[in-house]
């Protein structure tokens, strides 16, 4: 117990805290500038100086911890004078250009000076002159306003882990500069903008656009760009988003990533749909809502009557709210009598979630993200979490910074500086690697409890020695052993699973091995998810194998099966909600053939996508902040987002209930809250616990033996997940376009050397399916025979090169057999 007296008031504390914290508990405000709740104490600005009895000098409240019996004064004459002088010092070189500074009105320096500063200045010399820097496409630097509090640098270095900026020069010439010179060329999280207390770092996007006090409204929302679902506030003026800022609490706290912060301008994209459209001949024409809905109803009734509901398919989306997805599947199952409901998430997220929940238990992935940085070890499998789910990735970086071992399986450039043990197997050899880990762990750990499916699997899986693993995966035994030691010793392991590992030839076995690892380590599971509502999508039952509260009496078709069925004539109508299936499915020609063969293609979306361009009917819906709804994030936390803007179109659930009404099935919802209420009453029926039947599908015992993989020297293309340029909406964000990389192919040093390719060279990448012209990016960490190409929209992405193959167990298209040939395109000879 520590008793401290501050300004005559006593506070009793359980443990030593800083004077600043102790004062806060008493409601005493001590002004600060360099201090920030997300950052370590710095003690640089000296604004928080306080007087302590029996201590000769004033001390900084942000760094000084209290001692028992300490008597502190925060308002004595000495303190007031020190504060005033610190503020005077801060102002002598400050331009005092508040009238043209975007920060004015919410500037911490301005507020502090107004409250504690001197009435007049005494500095008559010339001020420091640093020209404003506009070289970066997103961030403006005004180093004349900078007060050298280093909050941006500490954020960039110690929290974001991008280490893109630093202090340069000394004394009064000190300023913040990106390492890369004028441009930041960083992760563009913009978290430096959040912490800058003054107008030194500002977003170029809304520069001089408004004053903070001119904001009409602030709406709490959830980020729509990945499965983390960071809590953010949307600031509105004149029915337009002026800025998106982190809420400071809830998911993500005061952190955002580039998409969340800068991507919101997709709402003003020129690609937005504004009116319902119906196909006439080659074109789409504007129609009224009555006409469009009448048309859909008429055609669906006809197809259902003639061919039956099972010839109608629906593709839902993790980009849509729980309300939309719930209404969608209810409409299909009840009004159309069809269980053909799936989504793009069904290609990889779906099987992972379904089988892991089957094997380990429902809601096994419903874990708190903040626990990652408090684990004893972190195992990351699959793709790079710092680009798929950036704010989750920061938790892994935080863990690593604390000395917690981070073991990675797969290529993760964003964790390059943060992975203790890197296990990058050759393509197709992940299965062997995972088996080797399972083999080693099962001899050294005893799983708690029992699990009939996984116990069986563990018994029958063939032992893979570290030596075998070394020869087949190209990872040294020593490193494998280090990984095993790190995992066995840790009683508290977070396992972060990238879903694309199931899109392999042995995807189902990868999944089984991951389940075994999670079982042996009793790990806390996180499933990476690309869309904001992949978790909710499945909870809502937009899945051919499961529905909300129960299993369907018969399973429906998965997304790939629907495409096949459309080509073969078994599927007559397809209703696509919220996703551009062209940008997620491989083999464009096949998809095009499928969509052309349909009698009816309904697309309900906010954007005129390639898929919408082929539709018979297009139904515009508001995008994200233009309506209210809820998303369930990868931690299984459901959060509502408010309506911030007026947007074109009708809410998805409203359109669906109107169509449903036309088919004679009434869903009477007046607002999203009514849909939510129905979801809540139904969700309580959900089944809990492991489900052997679902899990057993994963493995036939014979497969638990393995075929050795030989490295045949062929080059295989895999999907890359760049941090900048991830989500398909991206193409629509003018701001993010400025920092998105040109289409590229990532290749290892050895391969590049072998092909005489240098970084930045233009190369051609060809497969049986097509050829791409891309820029080469050399990446030392990539194994020799692998290249990686992002799945960007348009004709530049890896989907152009991919063949149509399916893993029969997971129903996922297989991605690891895309053999490619790479050659350098001779450019203009340098003089």
């Amino acid at each position, binding site marked *: 117990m520590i008793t401290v007296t501050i300004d005559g008031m006593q506070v009793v504390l359980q443990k030593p805290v800083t004077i600043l914290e102790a004062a806060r508990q008493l409601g005493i405000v001590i002004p600060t500038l360099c201090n920030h709740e997300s950052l370590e*104490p*710095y*003690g*640089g*600005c*000296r*604004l928080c*100086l306080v007087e302590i009895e029996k201590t*000769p*000098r*004033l001390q*900084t409240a942000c*760094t000084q911890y209290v001692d028992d019996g300490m008597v502190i004064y925060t308002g004595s004459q000495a303190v007031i*004078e*020190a504060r005033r*002088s*610190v503020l*005077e*010092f*801060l102002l*002598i*070189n400050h331009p005092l250009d508040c009238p043209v500074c975007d920060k004015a009105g919410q500037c911490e320096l301005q507020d502090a000076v107004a409250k504690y500063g001197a009435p007049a200045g*005494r*500095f*008559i*010399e010339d001020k420091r002159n640093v020209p404003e820097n506009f070289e970066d496409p997103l961030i403006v630097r005004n180093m004349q306003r900078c*007060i*050298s509090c*280093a909050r941006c640098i500490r954020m960039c270095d110690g929290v974001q882990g991008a280490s893109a900026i*630093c*202090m340069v*020069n*000394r*004394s*009064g*010439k*000190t300023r913040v500069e990106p390492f890369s010179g004028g441009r930041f060329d960083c992760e563009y999280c913009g978290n430096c903008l959040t912490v800058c207390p003054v107008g030194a770092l500002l977003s170029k996007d809304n520069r001089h656009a408004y004053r903070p006090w001119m904001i009409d409204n602030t709406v709490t929302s959830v980020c729509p760009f990945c499965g983390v679902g960071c809590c953010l506030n949307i600031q509105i003026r004149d029915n337009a988003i002026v800025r998106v800022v982190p809420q400071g609490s809830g998911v993500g706290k005061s952190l955002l990533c580039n998409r969340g912060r800068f991507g919101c301008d997709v709402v003003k994209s020129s690609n937005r749909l504004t009116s319902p459209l119906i196909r006439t001949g080659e074109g789409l024409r504007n129609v009224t809502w009555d006409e469009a809905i009448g048309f859909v109803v008429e055609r669906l009734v006809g197809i259902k009557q003639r061919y039956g509901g099972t010839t109608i398919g629906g593709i839902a989306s993790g980009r849509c709210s729980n309300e939309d997805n719930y209404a969608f599947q209810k409409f299909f199952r009840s009004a159309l009598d069809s269980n053909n409901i799936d989504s793009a998430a069904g290609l990889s997220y779906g099987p992972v979630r379904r089988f892991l929940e089957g094997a380990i238990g429902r809601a096994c992935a419903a874990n708190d993200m903040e626990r990652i940085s408090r684990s004893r070890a972190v195992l990351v499998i699959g793709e790079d979490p710092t680009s798929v789910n950036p704010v989750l990735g920061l938790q892994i970086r935080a863990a690593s910074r604390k000395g917690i071992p981070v073991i990675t399986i797969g290529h993760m450039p964003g964790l390059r500086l943060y992975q203790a043990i890197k296990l990058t197997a050759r393509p197709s050899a992940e299965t062997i690697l995972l088996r080797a880990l399972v083999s080693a762990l099962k001899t050294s750990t005893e799983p708690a409890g029992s699990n009939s499916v996984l116990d069986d699997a563990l018994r029958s899986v063939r032992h893979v020695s570290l030596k075998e693993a070394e020869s087949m995966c190209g990872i040294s035994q020593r490193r494998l052993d280090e990984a095993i030691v790190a995992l066995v010793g840790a009683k508290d392991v977070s396992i972060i699973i990238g879903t694309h590992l199931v899109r392999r030839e042995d995807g189902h076995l990868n999944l089984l091995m991951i389940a075994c690892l999670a079982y042996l380590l009793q790990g806390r599971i996180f499933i990476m998810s690309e869309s904001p509502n992949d978790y909710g999508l499945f909870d809502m039952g937009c899945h051919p194998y499961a529905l909300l509260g129960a299993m369907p009496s018969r399973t429906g078709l998965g997304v790939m099966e629907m495409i096949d069925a459309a080509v073969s004539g078994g599927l007559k109508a397809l209703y696509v909600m919220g996703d551009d299936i062209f940008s997620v499915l491989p083999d464009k020609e096949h998809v095009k053939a499928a969509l052309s063969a349909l009698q009816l293609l309904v697309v309900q979306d906010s954007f005129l996508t390639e898929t919408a361009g082929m539709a018979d009917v297009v139904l515009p819906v508001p995008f994200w902040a233009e309506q209210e709804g809820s998303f369930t994030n990868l931690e299984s936390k459901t959060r509502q987002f408010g309506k911030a803007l007026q947007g074109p179109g009708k809410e998805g659930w409203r359109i669906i209930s109107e169509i449903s009404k036309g088919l004679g099935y009434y869903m009477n919802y007046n607002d999203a809250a009514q849909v939510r209420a129905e979801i809540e009453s139904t969700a309580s029926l959900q089944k809990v616990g492991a489900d052997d039947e679902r899990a057993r599908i994963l493995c036939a015992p014979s497969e638990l033996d393995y075929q050795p993989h030989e490295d045949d020297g062929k080059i295989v293309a895999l999907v890359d997940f760049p941090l900048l340029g991830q989500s398909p909406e991206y193409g629509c964000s003018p701001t993010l376009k400025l920092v998105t990389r040109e289409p590229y192919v990532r290749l290892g040093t050895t391969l590049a050397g072998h092909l005489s390719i240098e970084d930045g060279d233009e190369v051609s990448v060809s497969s049986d399916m097509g050829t791409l012209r891309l820029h080469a990016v050399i990446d030392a960490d990539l194994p020799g025979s692998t290249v990686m190409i992002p799945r960007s929209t348009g004709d530049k992405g890896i989907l152009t090169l991919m063949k149509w193959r399916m893993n029969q167990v997971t129903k996922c298209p297989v991605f690891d057999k895309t053999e490619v040939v790479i050659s350098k395109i001779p450019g203009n000879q340098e003089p």
Partner: protein
Amino acid sequence: MAHILLKHIDHPGSRDIGVYMKSGGYRSLEKALAMKRSDIIDEMKHSGLRGRGGAGFSTGVKWSFSTLTPNLPKYLLCNADEGEPGTFKDRPILEENPHLLIEGMIISAYALGAEYGYIYLRREYPAALGILEKAIRDAYKNNLLGRDILGNGIQFQLSVFQGAGAYICGEETALIESMEGQRGQPRIKPPFPVTDGYVGKPTVINNVETLANVPYIIEAGGAAYSKIGSPSCPGPKLFSVSGHVKRPGVYELPMGISLREIIYDHCGGIRDDRALKAVIPGGISTPVLPANNIDCPMDFLNLPRHGSMLGSGAVMVFDETVDMSWVCLRATRFFEHESCGKCTPCREGVGWMAAILARMHAGQGNSGDIELLLNVALNISGNTLCPLGDGAASVVKSFLRHFRREFEEKLERKSCSAERA
């Protein structure tokens, strides 16, 4: 007094390990290795040795703090970032007597249980780099450094780390930051380096001269050492004397000797036998003393009684011809240039003081400038993160206290010329 630190310094081969060993070098190490670690630390305490870097903290006490923490490994750093104007006392040791330092470091490392050591050498001593590196190589060859020192199973690995030229890196926590590859800026204390130092491990940092005293203390014993010089601050002290004396240079003299003896007996008096005006007794960061203070004993306790500090023992002598407001400006410009920029009062305030002084010196001063200057200095004092800004402020205050008239003349001259115009 026989030289201890500058022993054999005039011998042409003084930096050679053979010469050093022939004259009794590394015997103290042998003796120390036969002692218990705690006995060495006790001997240091008995000696009364105070750190020679400037703060004058008891070396034995500092070492005993280090033994309190169980964390390993421990590091021993030698601060050879002698960057303060006027200070060049360590240079003869580094360049002419490197084995004395190395021997001192090995003994210290053994006493502290430190297995790794670095000499943080300022980049402006390029000759010392080669000399130290050769000396370290020779010590390794003679089994004085390495995994099994003199067959005693003791490990100590030593190498030189070159600074990049920042004065602030002589501050121990900034020195550590710099060694870790960070920007050279002081850290918040606590925690102190002795528990959380280099790479977060317990670290003892001592000045070159401090470590060079260690072999003698082991050889002669703490009690004998404590009889040299002032009873409260015993030992020999290196004084680097510069400015208007006839024979500037580095002098090894007993602690407590008066400025008068240093200037007139050892340095031959003031050049051209002019009158003495002022002395900066301990390097540019210590307050200036007017000539009437020169009977003050030079040690850590007596100089503060006269309004200054011993600092590094860099005596800067100014004769009657010197414009003290100009010295003040030069000193302040140095601090402005070297302020690391981390804390507000030092970053902004010292530059402001320099600007006012420059203006006054250029004849552009205003009537209230002296009060303004004093007030700015007052506002810096005590409010900074490390002693750099405090030093700058106290230097300005001392010049204004003792030589205010010279500043006022600057202002009067301006008003005269204004009248004439």
